[in-house]
């Protein structure tokens, strides 16, 4: 695999899926995210890069309001999903999260069977009418996560018994099963070995056909490999946002350049 594969990139003029305007996040008195404006396109992989503690994960968790589960966290500004403000009082985060799925840093399959892991989302949201439909969704999701062939004979086995890479793909299948529009991935490969990482990256590229994917990553190579657009965060600020090729070959901001060339990080 070529590490800096920047060719054959087709950035379509897709619709804007998520628009963030002047987003501020506070943890207690700490100002973690400052004035971030971002447009995330549909059917595109957007990568958030930056040094540790730069706020990229925090911002990601704002997009499906996962920060609500942290008491001291406060979000200001607007984040619009298809033009609707997700922090509006009328919005139920439960409904929002069915449309904005999330995959976490560490594979976290539930202590249930593989089947039940994938079926969990559709069941709680009442998206299926009967067992046959559910079977269909589970199979489709596992196929999308490129896991079907490996587990189709042992759907009743516990999800925790799979290898790390398989577990992460199971988690992706689980997130995909509710057929979200946006898939948020928080360093999905950081706990995986290189082979599993390659599989998941390949998968991300395929997911782009159906979803808008946002991925936080530590690895610039990974961002370069899987994303079409890249946002560089530094100390809570969005420093630069643009097409991945441009960010990596011709960064406009000196801080971006320093990071990419390894001088800060």
């Amino acid at each position, binding site marked *: 695999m070529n590490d800096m594969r920047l060719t054959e990139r087709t950035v379509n003029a897709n619709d804007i899926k998520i628009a963030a305007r002047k987003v501020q996040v506070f943890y207690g008195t700490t100002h973690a995210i400052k004035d971030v404006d971002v447009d995330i396109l549909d059917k595109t992989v957007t990568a958030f890069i930056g040094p540790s503690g730069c706020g990229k994960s925090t911002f990601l968790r704002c997009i*499906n309001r*996962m920060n609500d*589960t942290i*008491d001291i966290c406060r979000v200001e500004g607007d984040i619009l999903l298809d033009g609707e403000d997700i922090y509006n009082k009328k919005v139920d*985060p*439960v*409904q*929002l*999260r*069915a449309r904005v*799925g*999330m*995959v*976490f840093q*560490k594979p*976290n*399959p*539930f*202590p*249930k069977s593989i089947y039940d892991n994938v079926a*969990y*989302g559709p069941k*709680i*949201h009442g998206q299926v009418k009967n067992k046959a439909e559910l079977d269909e969704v589970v199979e489709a999701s596992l196929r999308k996560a490129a896991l079907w062939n490996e587990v189709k004979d042992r759907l009743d086995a516990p999800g925790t018994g799979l290898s790390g890479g398989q577990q992460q793909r199971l*988690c992706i299948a*689980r*997130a995909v099963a*509710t057929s979200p529009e946006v898939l*948020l991935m928080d360093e999905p490969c950081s706990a995986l070995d290189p082979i599993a990482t390659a599989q998941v990256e390949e998968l991300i590229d395929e997911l782009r056909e159906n979803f808008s994917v946002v991925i936080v990553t530590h690895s610039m190579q990974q961002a370069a490999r899987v994303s079409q657009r890249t946002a560089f965060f530094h100390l809570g600020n969005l420093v630069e946002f643009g097409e991945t090729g441009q960010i990596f070959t011709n960064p406009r901001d000196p801080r971006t350049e320093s990071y990419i060339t390894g001088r800060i990080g």
Partner: protein
Amino acid sequence: MTLGLLAALVLVLAIGGFILGRQRALSSAKGDLRKLHSLPGYYGQTVALFTAVPAFVLMAVWLFAQPALIETRVAKLLPGEEHLDLVMTDVRKIAEGLDLIVAQGYLSNKAISDMRADLSDIRSRMGDVGIALGSNVKPTVFEAAKSYRSLNHMGRIGMTVAVLAVALAGFASAFLRIQPEFRARNVSESFVKVLLIAASLVAIATTVGIVLSLVFETVHFFKIYPAADFFLSLTWNPQFGGGSDLGIWPLIWGTLYVSLIALAVAVPIGLFAAIYLAEYASKKLRAIAKPLLEILAGIPTIVYGLFALITVGPMLRDYFAQPLGLGTSSSSVMTAGLVMGIMIIPFVSSLSDDIINAVPQSLRDGSYGLGATQSETVKQVILPAALPGIVGAILLAASRAIGETMIVVLGAGAAAKLSMNPFEAMTTVTVKIVSQLTGDTEFASPETLVAFALGLTLFVFTLILNIVALVIVRKYREQYE
């Protein structure tokens, strides 16, 4: 010589040993500490340990073994006695009486050894010093008592001599070995290590003691009362004059019924409280409510017993049992079960709370990330993940309920019944252990000994529950560590 004096003497020897040993080490090195292998204190410590520890161990062993040895020897003097236990009780009493007679100066030791049961009125003499005997004393029994007494005296003298000899020998052997090359630190540290091991064996000794005393007396009981009746009879009806029915089932039924009600109270409240405190409550509420619930576990059970007796029992009787025509007793299965339920709430809630907190946050995130509500996450992800641990917690609570004594003594009643009515007074295994062992019946009678069989049943029952629970909880902890 009294035990206290003997112990004090050994201690003085040990302290002296410390001082002398230290001095000898210093003088053998001619004041140059660098020549010594260890610091001078260690030489003193070695002498002190060698003086005191073997002597005290010997003393403890002697005190423990002497009664058994003497009793078997005295028992040989009483061939053909039917109720040896009862006779031995008399022997002990008479021996004690003789001691008192001598102590109060009525008779000399010499006079006592000449005393004969067929010539003098032993019973009235014993009465003079406050020892009440049930019947006149047979000559063989009196002779046995005399030999019991003299053996005891000899034993005591023998012990004093032996303990002092061992102390002095230990002192000498350690003291004489002192020279600069003597590795006093290593020796005394090995010695201390042996002491540490001995301390950790106390736990084993306790269990062995429990099992032996229960099994021994239970075997005794089954010799005079058929085991089949005990395990199969449905009647519990002890009689003073003998001919008792001692079937365990009414007691087991009462125990299980009370425990079941207790669990029916404690499990839902404890579990929901644990879930609320772990998943929902603000830090402030948690900081207040959690200790408050744990206070419930720190309150002595006698307090719950009194609560059942004066508050819950009368209340249940006046507002439920009597209006519903279910009974007129204030002590009932319901009273005891309810109060016991309150007592074991913290056993369920505290342990469940720990276990729920041990479920990794990543699982919660995974569930919330999929759009589950908090209660869906709890019900479908956290509880299944925590289930083994929670089952363990409930089993521990059940074992607590089954072994609980004071609440049922004061709240459940004393009538052994096989009834379904929860407002009726029933009784439990623990209640009967207390009533059979605190009554006035003779120790060797089946009515008393049955308590040991009940105790063994209780012990085995709770042991199984505890071990299963411990294994489950331990497995669960390992899973997330």
